[in-house]
């Protein structure tokens, strides 16, 4: 067990928690109307707490302890037997539990963007708890827990498949089943606080260093390169959005800019342990462009109210990175090469399979979860509550009293 690696992963854990609390919270809260700010923040923090309990209760053991190809075992149910001397992956096992817990928090929290301003709070809680166990935990096991995708040599360093594809695809399913916000798309109001969106994006960026570089589970050159390519991709994708908006509308916006940032971060995530600086740049470029047009396609053309563009930015970004990383893995350009014995085409096949099966499973399971939730709790608030705003209607509070 390395104290130096422990030191870095302790820090990384704090950084990933910072991504959700308050990073993602602010990012999303700034994008909604002033009357739904608290509701969005409540979603994020309540998800954080509930997912933590589900994770320590059963998620961790099912995801990351020895099991079969599809799911882990029960040896750490309720974290039984875990103490200060337990070791896993060369780190204190309590730290592995914690670090991975912060991933299990942010992944469902990403989905909040799909259903803001109209969903019942109880539905959020139930959907996310079921989703963690039925979607997130198995996919973690497949990819990171020694499951079937891991055995096939899928490359997903920090969660392109595990985090972004699962959350993005499921978010769209929920958005469709829940229905659009009243007045969508013509009468929906613009973001109430772009400044807050930027602050949230900044904290996400800083925290993402823990997310990606922490996924090395060590303080070494791999972590360092993951941090560097993460940064390069985020910078590049941001500037891509700037350029597109400048060309299309004449005025580059801050909200657009930081959406590019997040697109770049999501895209590099699966690749950050595999590519070098050039790959970081290329993936930022690609992710920026692809996500831009995905937003346009889903929201503005298909008219699906995935309100804060979870699929278009996270899902599409994560999938793009997962697939395109095979092009930039060559050691000649600073990459680490493929899984042992793999060719470019073979690796690409595995990556496609990983993305495809995960997306499919996410769709099926999420449909089931939403149907159950609709029956047990109901999904939508009443039209009056929607008009009034969820802050007061569901939480009895007002965000601003200036």
């Amino acid at each position, binding site marked *: 067990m390395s104290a130096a690696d422990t030191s870095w992963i302790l820090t990384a854990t704090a950084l990933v928690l910072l991504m959700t609390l308050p990073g993602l919270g602010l990012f999303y809260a700034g994008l909604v109307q002033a009357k739904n700010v608290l509701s969005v923040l409540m979603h994020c923090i309540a998800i954080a707490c509930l997912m933590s309990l589900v994770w320590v209760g059963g998620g961790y053991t099912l995801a990351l302890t020895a099991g079969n190809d599809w799911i882990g075992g029960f040896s750490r149910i309720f974290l039984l037997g875990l103490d200060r001397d337990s070791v896993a992956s060369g780190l204190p096992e309590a730290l592995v539990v914690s670090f991975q817990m912060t991933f299990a928090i942010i992944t469902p929290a990403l989905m909040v963007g799909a259903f803001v301003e109209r969903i019942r709070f109880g539905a959020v809680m139930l959907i996310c708890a079921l989703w963690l166990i039925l979607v997130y935990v198995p996919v973690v096991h497949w990819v990171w827990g020694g499951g079937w995708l891991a055995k096939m040599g899928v490359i997903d360093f920090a969660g392109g498949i595990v985090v972004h594809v699962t959350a993005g695809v499921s978010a769209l399913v929920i958005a469709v089943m829940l229905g659009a916000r009243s007045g969508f*798309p013509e009468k929906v109001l*613009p*973001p109430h606080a*772009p400044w807050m969106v930027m602050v949230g994006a900044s904290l996400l960026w800083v925290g993402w260093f823990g997310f990606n570089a922490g996924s090395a589970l060590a303080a070494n050159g791999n972590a360092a390169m993951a941090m560097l390519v993460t940064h390069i991709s985020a910078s590049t994708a941001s500037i891509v959005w700037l350029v597109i908006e400048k060309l*299309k509308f004449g005025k580059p916006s801050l*909200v*657009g800019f930081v*959406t590019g940032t997040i697109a770049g971060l999501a895209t590099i995530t699966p690749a950050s342990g595999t590519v070098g600086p050039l790959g970081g740049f290329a993936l930022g470029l690609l992710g920026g462009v692809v996500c831009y047009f995905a*937003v346009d396609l889903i*929201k503005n053309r298909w008219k699906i109210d995935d309100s804060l563009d979870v699929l278009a930015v996270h899902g599409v970004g994560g999938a793009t990175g997962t697939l395109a990383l095979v092009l930039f893995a060559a050691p000649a350009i600073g990459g680490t090469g493929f899984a042992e014995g793999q060719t470019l085409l073979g690796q690409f096949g595995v990556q496609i399979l990983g993305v495809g099966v995960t997306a499919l499973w996410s769709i099926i399971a999420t449909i089931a979860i939403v149907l159950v939730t609709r029956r047990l709790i109901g999904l939508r608030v009443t039209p009056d509550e929607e008009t009034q705003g969820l802050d007061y209607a569901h939480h009895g509070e007002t965000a601003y009293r200036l």
Partner: protein
Amino acid sequence: MKMIMAVIQPHRLDAVRDALEAINVHGLTASEVKGFGQQRGHKEIYRGAEYQINYVPKVKLEIVVADDILDDAVDAIQQAARQGRVGDGKIFVWDVETTIRIRTGESGEGAV
């Protein structure tokens, strides 16, 4: 006494106040309002989606003046607020029956 209600461009507020001070009108009440009129609002674009912002931020002034300085006051406002562009605003005038100064209870033109 007369009530002058003027809707002006926010950045002309200081000029209008100065103009009124110059003719010895020292009291007024201002508020931030949203104007709808010939001047259209603007569009904002977030993530490629267009949002039409219908209203234009304006400042509304309410000024009660004695009858005999009404014309001067209206002129002062009109000239100070004017930029010659659509959206410069409007002035409305109506009759006020009574004015009372809360501090002293005095009423009538002396209280204005």
